[in-house]
């Protein structure tokens, strides 16, 4: 498989040349904005507040280190009695901003266009912007944490990525914390702190894949609305969380249905070896529901009246392993949806696996790679080819941080990512965003990204 990927990567030089030509299609990847809705998070406001370098909380920002994980688990508090806002200068404001000006190139094969209904290769390239994340997080008082992340996309649209309040250390115990609002799920491999930025590399298929014809809208990588009860040991080596979430994939407003989703995570770290961090293993599970029947008015469903809920499940295991400066993050998962969530009479099921590797040469240089696969184990409809929806994704990248202070940070980011999907558009939505003509057609999609990723 890897050899086939390398073969597919050969046209890269061609792509670079193509990038120099005018973009006749004039189309930007439709989901690129969505990709940046999942923009990774790194918060210099905390570094300013506590006087710590980025590298204290991040192995290579935005990925959290063990120290940063404990800081987050403790409600963004270090625990040295300097956490309450009363300690801060009146001039301090808990806000940071992040954006990523960039040049990128997207190349996707077998794309249906008006002039080529049978499909052609589309190449899109140019300078672009990521939009801006406003990261407002901190403490309202000792053991009361808040988070607010408005987003401003490059096209001017706004969003609310996160908004929550968290009551920390209930009963003076780190094992009891309650968070309410919209927030990222407690994923050990965080997509919000992912070190990938390209259209094809910035998503995890494990967190967003849905089978062909699915009416489900759930994504692990999407922030959800609900309540999370969590706990951790003093050093956060042992962690758990239990969440109850509205069944609308984080969409504000009256929930689509009257049932709740539930998620459980648990992980344990071991101080083995002399790597940059401890060795952590974890499991996760999600039981969700989606309504299939709505009361309607004029034929339009009335929000909040969903019923006849049908379930779906996701569960898996992951790890964070260190060998010196090399970090390995494997993740495997299994997923299945109720047949009523589409597309046929059977329950679709699929498996995912990925291995991400980070070589943190220094806190200021990260070399990384990831390989991920999705394999359908059962289609929802017997007429769907068994392989339709299968996906492979391979990504390489380098991030260099020319300076690293407690006031701001910048990364020079280079990334190449490519995916192979069968009978479907890539998750990035690159190209025309339309499924290929044949359900067995292989679509290759490649991203090249050169960016200045900075936060201040």
């Amino acid at each position, binding site marked *: 498989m890897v050899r086939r990927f390398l073969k597919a990567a050969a046209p890269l030089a061609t792509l670079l040349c193509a990038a120099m030509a005018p973009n006749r299609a004039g189309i930007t990847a439709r989901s690129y904005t969505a990709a940046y809705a999942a923009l990774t998070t790194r918060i210099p406001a905390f570094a300013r507040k506590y*006087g710590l370098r980025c590298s204290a909380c991040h192995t290579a920002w935005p990925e959290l280190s063990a120290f940063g994980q404990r800081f987050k688990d403790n409600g963004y508090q270090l625990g*040295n009695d300097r956490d309450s806002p009363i300690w801060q200068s009146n001039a301090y404001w808990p806000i940071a901003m992040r954006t990523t000006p960039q040049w990128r190139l997207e190349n996707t094969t077998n794309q249906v266009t008006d002039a080529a209904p049978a499909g052609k290769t589309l190449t899109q390239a140019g300078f672009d912007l990521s939009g801006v994340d406003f990261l407002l997080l901190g403490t309202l008082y000792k053991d009361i944490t808040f988070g607010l992340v408005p987003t401003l996309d490059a096209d001017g649209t706004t969003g609310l990525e996160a908004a929550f309040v968290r009551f920390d250390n209930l009963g003076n115990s780190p094992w009891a914390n309650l968070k309410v609002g919209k927030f990222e799920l407690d994923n050990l491999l965080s997509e919000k702190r992912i070190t990938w930025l390209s259209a094809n590399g910035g998503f995890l298929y494990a967190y967003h894949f849905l089978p062909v014809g699915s009416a489900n809208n759930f994504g692990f990588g999407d922030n959800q609305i609900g309540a999370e009860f969590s706990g951790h040991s003093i050093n956060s080596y042992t962690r758990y969380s239990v969440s109850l979430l509205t069944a609308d994939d984080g969409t504000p407003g009256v929930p689509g249905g009257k049932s709740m989703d539930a998620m459980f995570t648990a992980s344990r770290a071991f101080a083995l070896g002399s790597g940059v961090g401890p060795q952590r293993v974890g499991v996760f599970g999600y039981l969700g529901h989606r309504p299939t029947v709505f009361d309607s008015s004029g034929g339009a469903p009335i929000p909040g009246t969903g019923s006849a809920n049908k379930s779906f499940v996701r569960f898996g295991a992951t790890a964070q392993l260190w060998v010196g400066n090399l970090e390995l993050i494997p993740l495997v998962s299994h997923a299945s949806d109720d047949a009523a969530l589409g597309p046929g009479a059977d329950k679709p099921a699929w498996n995912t696996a990925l291995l991400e590797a980070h070589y943190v040469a220094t806190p200021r240089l990260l070399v990384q790679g990831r390989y991920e696969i999705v394999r359908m184990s059962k289609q929802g409809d017997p007429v769907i080819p068994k392989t339709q929806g299968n996906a492979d994704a391979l990504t390489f990248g380098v991030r260099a941080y020319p300076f690293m202070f407690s006031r701001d940070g910048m990364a020079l980011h280079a990334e190449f990512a490519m995916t192979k999907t069968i009978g479907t558009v890539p998750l990035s939505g690159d190209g025309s965003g339309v499924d290929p003509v044949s359900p067995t057609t292989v679509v290759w999609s490649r991203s090249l990204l050169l960016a200045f990723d900075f936060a201040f």
Partner: protein
Amino acid sequence: MRPQTRWLSLVSACGAVLLLGSVSPAPAQETHVGSLTGRAGAGKPLYTRYCAGCHGDDGDAQGENAQWIDPKPRDFTTGTFKCRSTPSGSLPTDQDLFNSVTRGFVTTNMPPWVALTAQNRVDVVSYIKTFSSRWQRARPGTPITIPPEPAPTIQSILHGRELYQRMECWKCHGPAGHGDGPSAKTLTDSKDDPIRPYNFQTGSRFMCGTTNQDLYRIFMTGLDGSPMPSFDDQLKPADAWDLVHFLRTLQPLKTPEATIWRAWFTTHGRELKPIGQEGGGQ
């Protein structure tokens, strides 16, 4: 050169090497805490990652954040450390430094680094010891002996209160332990930076620990580099424990000492003389 002379030279050279080896202190590049051995080489990148922003790349407290921090970060080049189990003026043990890194310092910007693996912390300690030549010239002091703690009684608390008055602790820490004594605003540390005395109202943690033993150790070793002296030559162990029991009543905590104190105070409070310039402490 005659054979005897060559032989004599060889023996002399070997003797010199052995002599030099015997007087050199243990290599400062290594640290031993329990079964762990820390190495400075492994600690350097960790120090750069976690510590240098405040303590500086050269350990001289000149990190880019130092100017914003109050109190100032420790200057490792002086080889002077507040939290020790060893007598005043001596170097701390490896365990002392390990404990400091693990615990952090309350009311300062130094957080607990408990999330780092123990091996990482030992390695960092090893590297910290390379910044001062004191570690090359001297060995750590011998930890002081802490006698068993007697049970707290109202008598011990009252005696501790009397000592708090007589030893003039209140001049810095204030009559109620709020860190607002008449001398508080004039205090500076060994680098002439202003320093505030500990405010017992701030919570459960002291600068160097949380337990009664930790508090006892602070009296008897002092906090080197700060105005807090060692009272080892002025306090008998029993007196020191009495002072510990009294200081526990100043904290906003439900300690056994506070329970005893509050019960007694409700009926005898009026009998007490106030602590302070005109007070008697009893």
